[in-house]
C-alpha cells in the first residue's frame, strides 16, 4: 500500500479524488431526522449535469472534475515554474513602477477614485447596503484586529466584545437603551464616537493589563471568555441593555452645524462615504504606526521577547497598547454599525463573529495592511455573493464550511496569507534601488 503511494502520480490522483469527495459532501443536500443518511447518499446520487448537457448523477460529475483537477495539477507542477517565470518577467516593469514615489501615489489615487465611484458603478440596493454593513465595517474590524494579531502577535478570540461595547455605547449615548442616557441628554451619534472609542479602549486596557502577561494560548482563552461575558451581560441585563430584544431606536448620524443640516441613512450611499472616510483615516494611521518606533517595537517583541526586553522595551506596555488600539477600532466599528442599522441585539455579538474577523486577517495576511483589507473585501464579497445569488442547495449556514475549507487550503498553499507582510522585502528592495530611507541615511542626504 505504502509503495503504491510512493508514486507521485498515484498520490496526486488520490488526493484529487479525496478533495473532490469532500467537496461533493460539502455541497450536497442536508440530511434530516427521518432519513439521516440522505445527506450522504444524496451527495453522490442526486441528479446533476455537465453545464446542462449530459444528465447524470453527481458522482459522475465529480469523478470527471477530479480527473480534470489532477490533470491541471500535474501540468502545473511540470510547467508551472516556467509560467511563473514568464509572469514575473512580464510583471517586473509595472512592479518596479509601483516602487517609485509617483507610481505609488498613482495607485493610491486610482484606488481612491475607484472607492469614491463605486456606489455609482454598483447601483443594486442589496450590494450598496452590503458595501457599508458587510464590507467597509468588516475592513475596519479587520484592520483593528490586525494590529493585535498581526503587529503584536497576540491571539484575540474575543474581539467581538469591543465591537459590542461600541454598539451599546452608541445606543446608550443616543438614549436608545432602557437605561438613561448620560446626563439625561440624547446626544448626536457623532458624540458617541469618542465615548465609544474611550470605553472600548478602557475595556481593552482593563482586560489586557492583567492578562497580557500570559503567553499565547492562555491569552486566547481569556479573551474568549471575555467575549462571552460581554454577550451574556448584554443578554441578561434587561433593565440596562434591553435584554435579548436589544433596541431598535438608535438614530442615524446627523449633522446640525449652523445652517447645514444633514441626515444620513435614507440610502446606504451617504453611509458608504462616511465609512470610507474613516477607513482611510485608520488605514493611514496604522500604516504610519507600522513603520514607526512603535511598529518596530512590536516586531521586536514578536520576534524575540527576551531580546526585546534586554534592549529596554517593556513588552507588557506595548502589548496593552496594541490591545487598546485594536479594541478602540472595534468600538468605533460598533458605532458605525449601530447607527447605520438602528438596531442592536445580543445574538449578533457571538464568538462566530470574532472568528469571522480572525479569518479575514489570517486569509489576507497577518501583519500586512494591504493583505488584510484585500482579505476582508474578498471574503465578505464572496459570502455576500453566496447570500445574494445562492447556488442550488446552498444555505446561509453553509458559509462557515466553505470558510473553513478555504482556510485549510490557504494554510497549505499560502500560509502567510493572500498578500504576505512584505515590509522587510520591500524596504530592502527599495534600498537597493537607492530609494529606501536606509540609503538616504547612509549617503547623508536625508530629505
Amino acid at each position: 500500500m505504502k509503495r503504491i503511494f510512493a508514486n507521485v502520480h498515484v498520490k496526486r490522483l488520490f488526493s484529487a479524488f479525496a478533495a473532490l469527495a469532500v467537496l461533493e459532501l460539502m455541497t450536497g443536500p442536508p440530511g434530516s431526522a427521518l432519513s439521516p443518511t440522505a445527506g450522504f447518499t444524496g451527495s453522490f446520487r442526486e441528479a446533476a449535469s455537465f453545464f446542462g448537457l449530459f444528465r447524470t448523477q453527481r458522482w459522475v460529475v465529480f469523478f470527471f472534475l477530479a480527473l480534470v483537477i489532477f490533470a491541471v495539477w500535474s501540468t502545473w507542477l511540470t510547467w508551472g515554474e516556467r509560467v511563473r517565470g514568464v509572469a514575473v518577467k512580464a510583471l517586473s516593469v509595472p512592479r518596479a513602477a509601483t516602487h517609485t514615489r509617483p507610481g505609488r501615489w498613482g495607485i493610491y489615487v486610482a484606488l481612491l477614485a475607484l472607492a469614491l465611484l463605486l456606489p455609482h458603478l454598483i447601483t443594486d440596493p442589496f450590494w450598496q447596503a452590503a458595501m457599508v454593513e458587510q464590507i467597509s465595517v468588516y475592513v475596519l474590524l479587520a484592520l483593528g484586529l490586525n494590529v493585535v494579531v498581526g503587529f503584536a502577535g497576540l491571539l484575540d478570540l474575543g474581539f467581538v466584545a469591543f465591537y459590542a461595547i461600541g454598539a451599546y455605547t452608541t445606543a446608550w449615548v443616543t438614549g436608545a437603551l432602557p437605561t438613561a442616557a448620560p446626563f439625561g441628554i440624547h446626544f448626536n451619534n457623532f458624540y458617541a464616537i469618542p465615548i465609544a472609542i474611550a470605553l472600548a479602549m478602557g475595556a481593552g486596557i482593563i482586560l489586557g493589563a492583567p492578562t497580557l502577561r500570559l503567553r499565547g494560548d492562555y491569552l486566547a482563552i481569556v479573551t474568549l471568555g471575555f467575549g462571552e461575558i460581554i454577550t451574556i451581560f448584554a443578554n441578561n441585563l434587561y433593565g440596562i441593555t434591553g435584554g435579548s430584544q436589544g433596541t431598535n431606536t438608535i438614530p442615524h448620524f446627523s449633522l446640525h452645524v449652523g445652517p447645514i443640516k444633514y441626515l444620513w441613512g435614507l440610502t446606504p450611499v451617504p453611509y458608504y462615504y462616511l465609512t470610507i472616510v474613516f477607513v482611510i483615516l485608520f488605514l493611514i494611521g496604522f500604516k504610519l504606526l507600522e513603520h514607526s518606533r512603535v511598529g518596530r517595537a512590536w516586531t521586536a517583541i514578536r520576534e524575540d521577547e527576551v531580546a526585546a526586553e534586554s534592549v529596554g522595551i517593556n513588552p507588557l506596555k506595548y502589548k496593552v497598547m496594541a490591545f487598546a488600539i485594536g479594541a478602540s477600532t472595534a468600538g468605533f466599528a460598533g458605532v458605525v454599525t449601530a447607527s447605520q442599522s438602528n438596531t442592536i441585539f445580543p445574538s449578533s455579538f457571538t464568538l462566530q463573529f470574532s472568528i469571522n474577523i480572525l479569518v479575514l486577517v489570517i486569509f489576507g495576511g497577518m501583519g500586512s495592511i494591504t493583505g488584510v483589507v484585500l482579505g476582508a473585501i474578498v471574503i465578505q464579497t464572496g459570502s455576500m455573493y453566496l447570500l445574494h445569488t445562492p447556488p442550488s442547495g446552498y444555505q446561509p449556514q453553509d458559509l462557515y464550511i466553505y470558510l473553513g475549507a478555504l482556510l485549510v487550503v490557504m494554510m497549505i498553499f499560502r500560509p502567510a496569507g493572500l498578500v504576505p507582510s512584505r515590509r522587510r522585502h520591500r524596504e530592502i528592495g527599495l534600498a537597493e534601488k537607492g530609494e529606501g530611507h536606509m540609503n538616504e541615511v547612509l549617503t547623508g542626504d536625508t530629505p
Partner: protein
Amino acid sequence: MSDKIFDVDHVTLRFGGVVSLNDVTLHQERGEILAVIGPNGAGKTSLFNSLTGVYQPQEGTITFQGRDAKPMSVIGKKPHRVSTAGVARTFQASRMFSALTAFENIKIGAESHRGIGVIGAMLRGPATRRDERTSDERTVELLDFVGLRAKGNVISSSLSYGDRRRLEIARGLATSPQVLLLDEPAAGTNPSEKLELTTLIRKVRDEMGVSILLIEHDMKLVMSLAERLYVLNFGSVIAQGTPEEIRANDKVIEAYLGSTATETGDRS
C-alpha cells in the same frame, strides 16, 4: 574610594532544590574589563540573568551604580528597567530580531528608551521625525563602529556568526549603556574573527568608556582581554585575581581539569 559599577553581595539563587548561585560575592570597578569563567553549569549565565533582572535571586543584594545616578537594586526590577538604567547584554546563542535588517536591529535599541508616543507616531509630526533622524544617525554611527556599515541592509539571520556577534554588541551599545555584559561572545567564531572581536571589545571600553563584563570559555581570549577574573564552580566563587594569579591557582586547575590532575600536579 573605589567606584563600583556592580556590587554583588552574598547572592543565592535557587530553582526548587537546585542551587544555581551559592552565596556569590563579587564586584566590578567602573571602566574595568572583568571576566567570569568556570566549567559548564557553574552558574555563569545564571549570574548574568540575575544581573539583568531576568532571574530574581532569593538572597543577597545586587547594586548597580550608574554614573551621576542613585545606586539601584537590581533584584526585583524587570529586565527592561535594568536596561534603561544602563546595563546592556548579549546572549549566549545570539538572539537577533532575525527577520529584520541589521540596521533595524540596532535602531530598535537606539530608540527603545524614548517614550511610546502612539499619537505622535500616527500623526508623524516634526518631533517624531526629528527622533527618527537622531536614531538613524546613531544607528549608522554604531554600524560603522562595529564595522558592519556595508551590511546594514542585510537581514540579520543571514549574517555570519561573527557578524551577528558584532551586531548584538552594536544593538546593546545603542541603548547607551554604562556596562556591557557579553555572554560567550567568541563562541562559534573562527580565529581571525576572535581576534577582531578582542579588538572591538577593547575599543568599546577605551572609546566609549563602557565597562565590560564577560563570560568566556576561550582561555586565550579571556587571558588577553580581562584585567581581573572571577572563577565560578558549582555556583560558588572559588577564586579571583589577575590573569596571572588565576593561571597559577590550584583550585582553578582542579575545577577545570579534575582533582587527579591536581594530585599529579602536587607530586611533581
